[in-house]
């Protein structure tokens, strides 16, 4: 049984077919060809529009079908595991959230129509050649004239600057206005005088080579007042809030790519024989892959928690989003690097072994930790809020009603069976005022674990009855590790509170290292909360419920801080690692996504039944699913490890 919020993504997955089959629409072979030819994927994008995926970027209140970011990140993963370029090119549609957040009713209606009926795409034109991440320093101007503005200047490098109908342009409307001197415009290019704007040439890039990475320039380009989004002077605020939305979603790109690099490596490792052993049976390779899998599960907990938390703790996303955008892409980049060791030289080949998808995913994904705010930008955003986060933890301890509210929000953010409230972008705030539910709720979370561990002494009756079915050993280990998280957080808070606080861009190297540690502690709490709130959810299966993966996950995260006592209990850990490896192999064998959520991937189909584009025009709900447990394992895996084009 699938959780309902994952059904759409599974339908898309089945409709797209198995990417290892050359005949499927977005096969590894075909997308490699597009990449080699540096050819924009027009047909594939058109297919997605015909399938109706754009509707899931438009809130229901604006005549679309978007209801949940958890659903959203699931389908972005489905696209990203096939081809990051297509996924990113289509997902520039998420900039529409700027309009859903700040647009007038007429602008919302117009954009919704353009996306649904005209299949319009959009791009974000903030960056400039000379100004990088410094948005306030930008040179593009919008000078007020009768009935509108005159735009002047160039935006570069901009993904989909050329092949898009709507351009969100950030421009200076008041030379003396400082932070309130920038305004945001939703520019419909079809309505412009074609002689007043121009596109800059395609930029050649290391990855996503088929992307329309270009730029746009304006020369006294008239745009009517109706294209101003929100109030004049509010462009920077809208821009920064918009980034909170998109940064948290970017992690899903990395997750899709990491799924593919792991899968193609396993295609090799489960069959390749060296020294009379298969690669996967060699201890180093086995542990390398099981560790990488654990890191992927940690990222799953962080990103699914964030996707849901968006609906619940919207005003905290200046923190959650920064953690998610730093932690997940950077962790998964490392996962890919480590996984590549097992695949050996094939990881570097452009036309061998699953059409060279490993090197392509590696190249394509390298941009994710850079765009929409680089790792440095996100860590910097955390550093500036870090002192308030520390102070707020002290303050909230004296306010039991607020602590209870934190626990309620955490339950809603992490219980996958619970529906999430409607996302309200107007609740976004530039700073979280020291709030981060995961960290403020840490003592409460530990109390819940203690209640599971010591049922006879607990006052939490509702949890006491559950304890009988729990593995007390795991609970005891999670409890021990969670106390280490608390100690580390307390120590860091103390250090932050007592040290001199630096504003601005003169932050020390050590401050960045502390911010990375904060992300790891936040991630550790996300894992604990995901388990705590779903350990009885049958859909997630025995592996998830047993919680051994959680012990290993916490162990890996805390190893950055100190050697934990559990490290010395070799036998126990060895069995945990082996069980993690077994789960990894099961998911691979059954063509399931490498995730805490059971997610059936498309299995190979006989060529005759492939019907690329046959779903065009149908709504996803009309389509039949073929997500039966794999009966084609023989086909799916028999051809590995050598060049594998089924």
């Amino acid at each position, binding site marked *: 049984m699938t959780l309902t919020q994952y059904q759409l993504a599974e339908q898309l997955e089945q409709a797209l077919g198995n990417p290892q089959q050359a005949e499927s629409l977005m096969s590894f072979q075909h997308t490699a060809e597009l990449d080699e030819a540096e050819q924009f994927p027009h047909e594939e994008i058109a297919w997605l529009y015909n399938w109706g995926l754009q509707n899931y970027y438009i809130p229901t209140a604006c005549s679309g079908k978007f209801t949940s970011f958890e659903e959203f990140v699931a389908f972005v993963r489905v696209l990203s595991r096939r081809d990051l370029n297509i996924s990113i090119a289509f997902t520039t549609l998420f900039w529409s959230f700027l309009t859903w957040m700040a647009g007038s009713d007429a602008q919302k209606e117009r954009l919704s129509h353009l996306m649904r009926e005209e299949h319009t795409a959009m791009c974000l034109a903030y960056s400039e050649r000379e100004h990088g991440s410094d948005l306030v320093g930008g040179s593009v101007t919008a000078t007020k004239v009768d009935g509108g503005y005159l735009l002047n200047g160039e935006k570069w490098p901009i993904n989909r600057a050329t092949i898009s109908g709507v351009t969100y342009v950030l421009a200076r409307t008041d030379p003396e206005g400082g*932070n309130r001197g920038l305004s945001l415009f939703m520019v419909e290019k079809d309505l412009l005088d074609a002689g007043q704007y121009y596109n800059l040439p395609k930029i050649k890039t290391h990855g996503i080579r088929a992307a329309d990475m270009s730029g746009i320039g304006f020369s006294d380009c008239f745009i009517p007042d109706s294209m101003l989004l929100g109030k004049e002077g509010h462009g920077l605020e809208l821009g920064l809030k918009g980034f909170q939305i998109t940064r948290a979603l970017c992690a899903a790109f990395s997750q899709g790519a990491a799924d593919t690099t792991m899968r193609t490596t396993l295609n090799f490792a489960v069959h390749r024989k060296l020294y009379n052993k298969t690669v996967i049976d060699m201890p180093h390779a086995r542990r390398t892959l099981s560790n990488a899998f654990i890191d992927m599960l940690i990222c799953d907990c962080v990103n699914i928690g964030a996707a849901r938390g968006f609906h619940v703790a919207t005003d905290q996303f200046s923190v959650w989003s920064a953690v998610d955008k730093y932690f997940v892409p950077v962790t998964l980049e490392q996962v890919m690097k480590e996984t590549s060791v097992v695949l050996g030289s094939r990881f570097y080949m452009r036309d061998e072994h699953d059409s060279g998808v490993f090197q392509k995913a590696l190249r394509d994904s390298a941009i994710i930790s850079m765009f929409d705010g680089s790792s440095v930008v996100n860590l910097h955003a955390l550093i*500036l*809020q870090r002192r308030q986060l520390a102070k707020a933890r002290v303050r909230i301890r004296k306010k039991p009603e607020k602590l209870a509210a934190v626990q309620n929000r955490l339950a809603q953010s992490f219980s996958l069976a619970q529906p999430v409230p409607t996302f309200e972008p107007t609740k976004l705030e530039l700073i979280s005022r020291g709030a981060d539910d995961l960290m403020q709720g840490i003592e409460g979370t530990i109390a819940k674990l203690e209640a599971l561990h010591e049922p006879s002494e607990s006052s939490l009756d509702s949890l006491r009855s559950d304890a009988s079915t729990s593995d007390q050993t795991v609970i005891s280990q999670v409890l021990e590790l969670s106390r280490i998280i608390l100690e580390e957080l307390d120590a860091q808070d103390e250090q932050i509170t007592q040290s001199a606080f630096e*504003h601005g861009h003169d932050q020390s190297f050590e401050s960045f290292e502390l911010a990375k540690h904060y992300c790891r502690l936040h991630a550790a709490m996300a894992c604990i909360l995901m388990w705590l709130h779903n350990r009885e959810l049958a859909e997630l299966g025995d592996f998830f419920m047993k919680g051994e993966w959680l012990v290993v996950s916490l162990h890996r995260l805390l190893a950055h801080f100190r050697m934990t006592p559990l490290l010395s209990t070799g036998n126990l850990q060895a069995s945990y690692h082996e069980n993690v490896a077994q789960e990894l192999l099961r998911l691979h064998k059954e063509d399931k996504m490498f995730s805490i959520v059971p997610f059936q991937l498309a299995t190979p189909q006989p060529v005759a039944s492939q019907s690329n584009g046959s779903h065009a025009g149908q709504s996803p709900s009309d389509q039949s699913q073929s997500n039966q447990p794999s009966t084609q394992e023989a086909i799916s895996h028999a051809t590995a490890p050598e060049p594998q084009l089924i």
Partner: protein
Amino acid sequence: MQQLQNPSSSESESVLKIQSWLVEQIADVLSLDPTTIDVKQPLTRYGLDSIDAVTLVGDLEDWLDLELPSTLLWDYPSIEKASAYMVEEFDVAVD
């Protein structure tokens, strides 16, 4: 140190106290001599960037134990304007 709606503290006194707190903070943040800071000048002139300005509002909130608009120093971009706004709109009184 600070109270809200303290009738004993006159508005102008509160404005001056907020001003001097801001001067001190900004001098510290930007490594400037406090005597060189003119409360009438836009803060951007001293190199206070957009995110610094938002962070400083957080510090103000801590000091005053009061929730303020995070863009306060964008909308009232000089020390004089921001201090006057806080006293006027939020009845902030500092003694």
